[in-house]
């Protein structure tokens, strides 16, 4: 126990490279958390477990930056909005929605879907075709919008898996030698089964008599095998969003557990050490009992029987993490209480609580800060472990939760590395930041360790 002033600690800390690295990483994580909370709408994380929200995303697709690293370009998942043209000819109005795609990949896309929402009255004819880079135009589908006398709003999805599309293509196949399947036919070269690269234009033409349809919403989803910065999981969720939301959650869990347990442990230990005798004996026995409880089994039982709400979980984690701190701070307070100024305060008749909070606790503050930093990683990994077992709060996408899903869908055995690697690295990096800070503080407070 040495008395180092706050200024000295600051000065020493700024000299420590490790500590600065830790602060640097932590600052980065905090910036990520703040931007996540500020920029990404909260609805995304509330909808994390809502499959409907993710329907237009691809399934287990690799991050799109993989394309920069490999020579084989994996088709990216694209959501394309159309350009809309309107022409009038002999009283027939043609509304044409054109989706332009530059397709430069070495693999077929998995599918394509048109999603449109239109407002119209009367009857309209719909024609879907694709203009290929080699100049061939393929008719995909001819259909009508359902007849309506009054003005209605109508939503429609056209899938590439549609049987009519397949049939239409088969009819044109006689003249052009194409391969099997809608996707393969549309995207392969004439005469062989290789991919035709270049600019495609998908067109939805709607013909109406004297009245144009009003396109309210329209998009084309070209189902790829690569998506976003972090890829997607088996349930089509964008992993980047899950990982981003995990950051503030992990920091919140780690910091609140460690602050809570350090404060409890500190006061418990100091009080026990200061009081001494019987009180000390009883309090330390209680401490021993908690110490001897197997923590993880109990955490599991608590999570299963009581609740797995994230806030209660923080409380449960605290129960098992204040013990060590209480022991150390007790022995520290045993030393401090023999100091003259404490004895002087006692003789002056000050109250116990005042002596503890005014004279003993401030001496332990540097130690407290170091132990807060050091105990954060354990809290984060334990929470992640519990979530990994499926005992986490399902309404929050924590990193452990993502890994739990990865494990249930057998991501490791199927080779979905983008689902496994990032959450673990984030857990480790967050832990490291606090370990660095804690170690730097520790070596300043206990110069004995610095050799």
């Amino acid at each position, binding site marked *: 126990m040495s008395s180092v002033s706050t200024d000295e600690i600051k000065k020493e800390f700024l000299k420590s490279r490790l500590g600065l690295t830790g602060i640097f990483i932590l600052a980065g994580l905090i910036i990520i958390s703040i931007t996540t909370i500020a920029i990404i709408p909260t609805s995304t994380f509330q909808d994390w477990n809502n499959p409907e929200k993710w329907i237009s995303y691809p399934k287990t697709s690799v991050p799109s930056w993989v394309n920069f690293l490999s020579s084989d370009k994996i088709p990216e998942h694209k959501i394309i909005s159309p350009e809309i043209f309107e022409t009038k000819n002999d009283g027939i109005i043609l509304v044409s929605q054109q989706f332009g795609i530059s397709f430069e990949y070495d693999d077929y896309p998995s599918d394509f879907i048109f999603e449109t929402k239109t407002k119209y009255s009367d009857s309209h004819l719909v024609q879907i075709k694709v203009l290929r880079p080699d100049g061939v135009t393929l008719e995909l589908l001819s259909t009508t919008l359902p007849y309506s006398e009054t003005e209605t709003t109508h939503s429609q999805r056209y899938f590439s898996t549609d049987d009519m599309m397949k049939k239409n293509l088969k009819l044109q196949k006689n003249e052009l030698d194409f391969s099997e399947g809608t996707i393969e036919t549309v995207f392969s070269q004439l005469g062989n089964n290789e991919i035709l690269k270049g600019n495609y234009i998908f067109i939805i033409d709607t013909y109406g008599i004297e009245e144009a349809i009003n396109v309210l919403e329209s998009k084309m989803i070209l189902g790829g095998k690569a998506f976003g910065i972090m890829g997607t999981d088996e349930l089509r969720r964008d992993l980047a969003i899950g990982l981003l939301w995990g950051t503030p959650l992990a920091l919140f869990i780690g910091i609140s557990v460690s602050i809570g347990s350090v404060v409890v442990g500190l006061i418990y230990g100091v009080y026990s050490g200061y009081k001494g005798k019987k009180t000390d004996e009883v309090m330390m026995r209680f401490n*021993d*009992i908690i110490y*001897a*409880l*197997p*923590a*993880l*089994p*109990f955490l*599991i*039982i*608590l999570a*299963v*029987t*009581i609740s797995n709400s994230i806030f209660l979980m923080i409380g449960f984690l605290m129960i098992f993490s204040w013990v060590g701190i209480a022991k150390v701070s007790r022995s520290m307070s045993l030393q401090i209480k023999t100091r003259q100024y404490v004895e002087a305060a006692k003789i002056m008749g000050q109250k116990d609580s005042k002596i503890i909070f005014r004279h003993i606790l401030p001496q332990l503050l540097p130690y407290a800060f170091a132990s807060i930093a050091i105990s954060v*990683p354990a809290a984060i*990994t334990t929470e*992640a*472990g519990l979530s*990994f*077992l*499926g005992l986490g709060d399902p309404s929050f996408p924590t990193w452990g939760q993502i*890994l739990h899903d*990865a*494990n249930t869908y057998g*991501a*490791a*055995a*199927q*080779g979905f*590395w983008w689902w*496994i*690697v990032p*959450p*673990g690295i984030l*857990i*480790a990096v967050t*832990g*490291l930041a606090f*370990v*660095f800070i804690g*170690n730097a503080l520790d070596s300043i407070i206990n110069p004995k*360790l610095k*050799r």
Partner: protein
Amino acid sequence: MFGVLMITLLLTISLVGSNMDTILKQGIIYQVRAEITENTTISQAFNEPEEFEKFVQQKIDERIKTLGLDEPWYSPQRLGYTMYKILILDFGNATFLASDSGSSNVGEIILEKMPKTVLLFTTATIIISVIGILLGAASSNKIGSKTDRITSTFAVISSSFPVWWIGMLMIFVFAFVWQIFPARATPSIEPDDPGYILALLYHMALPVITIVLIGFGAWAYLVRNFMVGIMQEDFINAKKTMGISKKKIVYRHALRNAAPPIVTILALSLSGSLGGAIITEAVFDWPGMGRLYFEAISVMDLPVIIGSTYILTVLFLISIFIADLLYGYFDPRVRTSN
């Protein structure tokens, strides 16, 4: 120590007790109803459905009473009985789970799973401690050397990764990319097959490698720190001035003096890893206590939960006790005069 054991038990029972009672009661209601509706003569004997309901309820109450479930789980009678049964290691029968050989006796299930957990974690701990002690001694020999710095860095970095995550990565690398080891650690051969032990060892390789990889850095770092402390003591300086080679001092004299704390931590970490086994075994699907515990929790199989918690606590306490004994053995200063 006995007190701690009892408190652990009491806590476990009180946490799962009320849930268990509801489950049991529902089971009884279902059972009684099934029995009565199967027997059509009984239902035909009643004219009014209300009367029939009353009869069923009466039967249910009778059954609950004979099983002693009419009293709450915290009544001293039931609590005392449960505690007594557990003390004599009679855990009763599992409600849902069964051992591989088909027995639903909790004691038998645990007895079947226990050796596998012990096998996995003692093997891993032994490897970790051997590597750790050698590496720690080597790096304390030359402080600030390359070995020392690499060990320290590795210790800090490796300890901040969760073991189970490394496990997933290992499965990805060694079971998917290079298909060297199986992804599931449960052997597919029946336990009575002569090749079973070999298959088990082969399936054990991946978990052991993972645990060792995560553990040995921190160990080496710990040993190094103890050694550094001891190397500054007077008697080492005396040995140095006597002209004994530094290598001999490190491995012969300093290491022996570092033994007590090392052994204590060894025993503690072994028991600590038993708790961590729950997650590790879940990742690798290792058929040990940890997975049993997890399965028991997920289906709320009370006898199994209580039994395994009890066994885990007993093991934990035994290892603390052994650590104390070993400390006395290695460090004569704490031995009592008699």
